């Protein structure tokens, strides 16, 4: 190959390389930016007076005086809404039965939206579910509801060749000429005065329990559950893994048995995590009954089995990378093998072992499948440390899935999902970062 061709090839390879890296970065950005902005939105948003009421009533946060003053501020505006509703209801009583029936279903929708925005309408029975006891807590959600109130969504099916098209019709048209017609412009004009949106830093999102299945409140139970599960898994897997690695590298003879063990270990590392989940259910819960049903313990054990091969492999590599010379020096001074391992080999292998351990910890924190059948519940109380042997727990990974796919109000609480995703990513990143720092620290100590 002549020089010119080679140079051109080199250049084009560089270009291809850079392009692929840029593409990856762009793809990452597309994923990370919404997660980040959405997740931040769970903590930093425009909160309404309803948010502050919940904070005060459920968590005793905020000041009674301020809330009372703000309630006094919004009450006259809300009263006007209720007056319009009452007037229309009174009008309906005087209508022909057919006309009344026609209005009744349309009016119910309006009334529901108003209740959703402002909380229960005075005179209605006190709702049982917490979610109906308060109005909308987030301003952007309130604006969405307002849009729902102002417009009826319709679908255009006229062209059978195409997908149906969405279009909006002002809801006021449905009530033209009635007392209710006044409601729509009034709501549009005065919604902010009825809800008093304020910029809110809601740190409680990270430290408070959820209220009524994440409709309100925070995600502390999930964060804590994730922590319990991951740390529990580490408590089992880390010592076991390191011991196994020592056995493989320092004690095992090269024979059939060892090579079977080795390849079993490699194979385990590649088994899909859902299989571990089923194994955990079948073995830890159904067979040896570590708990009657799902528990943190069973979940931790399952996660431990899942991350064990990774820990073993990382520790093995770390131990093998310790210079033979250290071992010879120690043995040459009259040290026993075991003592050499403890005082020379393990300390020197520590950075690698730690890295493997913490990366596994991150993986244990993030996995969903292994805990579906063994530990996770979608809505649960925050459990204490003593409950880990018997109680299941909510956890970030599982609840992200659950909120996105199975929650009855999934659309209403996107911000909670984003908040959870961001929390989980942050936890895993933080773990990895601490692994890097710890590793650097230990290596520096070793290098002097």
């Amino acid at each position, binding site marked *: 190959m002549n020089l010119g061709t080679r140079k051109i090839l080199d250049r084009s390879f560089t270009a291809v390389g850079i392009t692929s890296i840029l593409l990856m970065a762009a793809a990452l950005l597309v994923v990370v930016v919404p997660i980040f902005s959405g997740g931040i939105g769970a903590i930093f948003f425009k909160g309404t007076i309803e948010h502050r009421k919940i904070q005060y009533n459920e968590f005793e946060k905020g000041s009674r005086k301020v809330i009372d003053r703000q309630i006094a501020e919004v009450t006259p505006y809300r009263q006007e809404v209720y007056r319009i509703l009452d007037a229309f209801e009174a009008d309906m009583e005087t209508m022909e039965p057919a006309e009344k029936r026609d209005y009744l279903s349309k009016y119910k929708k309006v009334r529901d939206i108003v209740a959703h925005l402002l909380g229960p309408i005075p005179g209605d029975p006190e709702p049982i579910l917490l979610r109906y006891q308060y109005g909308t807590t987030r301003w952007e959600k309130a604006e969405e509801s307002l849009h729902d109130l102002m417009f009826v969504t319709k679908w255009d099916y006229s062209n059978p060749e195409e997908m149906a098209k969405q279009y909006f019709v002002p809801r006021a048209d449905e009530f033209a000429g009635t007392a209710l017609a006044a409601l729509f412009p009034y709501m549009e004009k005065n919604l902010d005065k009825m809800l008093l949106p304020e910029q809110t830093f809601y740190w409680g999102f990270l430290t408070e329990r959820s209220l009524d299945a994440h409709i309100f409140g925070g995600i502390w139970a999930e964060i804590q559950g994730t922590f319990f599960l991951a740390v529990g898994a580490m408590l089992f897997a880390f010592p076991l893994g390191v011991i196994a690695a020592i056995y493989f590298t320092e004690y095992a*003879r090269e024979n059939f048995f060892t090579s079977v063990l080795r390849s079993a270990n490699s194979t385990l590392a590649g088994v899909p995590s859902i299989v571990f989940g089923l194994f955990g259910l079948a073995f830890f819960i159904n067979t040896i009954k570590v708990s009657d049903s799902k528990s943190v313990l069973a979940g931790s054990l399952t996660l431990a089995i899942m991350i064990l091969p990774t820990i073993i492999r990382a520790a093995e590599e770390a131990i093998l990378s310790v*210079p033979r*010379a*250290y*071992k*010879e*020096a*120690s*043995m*040459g*001074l*009259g*040290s*026993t093998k075991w*003592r050499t391992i403890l*005082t*020379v080999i393990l*300390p*020197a292998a520590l950075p690698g072992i730690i890295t493997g351990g913490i990366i596994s910890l991150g993986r244990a924190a993030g996995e969903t499948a292994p805990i579906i059948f063994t530990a996770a519940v979608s809505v649960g109380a925050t459990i204490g440390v003593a409950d880990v042997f018997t109680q299941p727990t909510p956890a970030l990974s599982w609840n992200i899935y659950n909120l996105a796919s199975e929650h009855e109000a999934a659309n209403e609480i996107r911000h909670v999902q984003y908040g959870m995703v961001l929390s989980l990513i942050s936890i895993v990143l933080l773990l990895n970062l601490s692994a890097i720092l710890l590793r650097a620290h230990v290596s520096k*100590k*070793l*290098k*002097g």
Partner: protein
Amino acid sequence: MQMTAEEKDTNRVATESNATREIFLPPERERVKDGGTPHVSAKNFSVFYGNFEAVKKVNADILSRYVTAIIGPSGCGKSTFLRAINRMNDLIPSCYTSGSLLFDGEDIYGRYTDEVQLRKKIGMVFQKPNPFPKSIFDNIAYGPRLHGVKDKKALEEIVEKSLQKAALWDEVKDRLDRNALGLSGGQQQRLCVARTLAVEPEILLLDEPTSALDPKATAKIEDLIEELRGSYTILIVTHNMQQASRVSDYTMFYYEGDLVEYAPTKQLFTNPRDQVTEDYITGRFS
């Protein structure tokens, strides 16, 4: 110079197999006190790696408190022989021995020999300096701690004494808590010597201790060997013939696993008996 019969006897190197070869110290090397008895004796001693015989039926006595150099072309079995003496070869699974190798009359490979105790008495310094990634103090104290010295004061004493013996004390006394890997190569190697001396061995095995060092550091190590001569039985593997002639009293020449010639250094270099030895020391091959 006249010698008594007894003196002749104690200075005889070769064993029964070639008892006729009586060899003496060259006059310019001072004789050491209480030395010259067989400290390590090999009788038909072979070392195998699997089927490969790396050291072949060696018969030799290593004399106490003298410096014995082992020379020979690369791969001739120098390290193998050296490492056999403190059973470092045990770390290699395929390695086994035949014949006998005695240390103070006890079989090194005897069934009841505790290799851990043995290595305490027969210390080793390796080709590449291999300090532990610990502080200078902890490096030296590693051996004594291993053997049960816990008292801080006693440890400090041992560390100072060992570093002084290894001629390193003055250079490191102010930074004993620093990591040993921060020292220069030559200092590291002297640290390794000090670390070995700290467990008070009787024999020092040095496997090409200067091959990774610059000439200045090499000179320091050679001075150190000169200093330690007379207190320890020293075996040094080297492929540098000037070094062998400078530091050693006796020299063994190995060739393809055979101990071809073993004689006082001066004699071996000036008047080799074997043609192969002559070819090697005159540089006809290496």
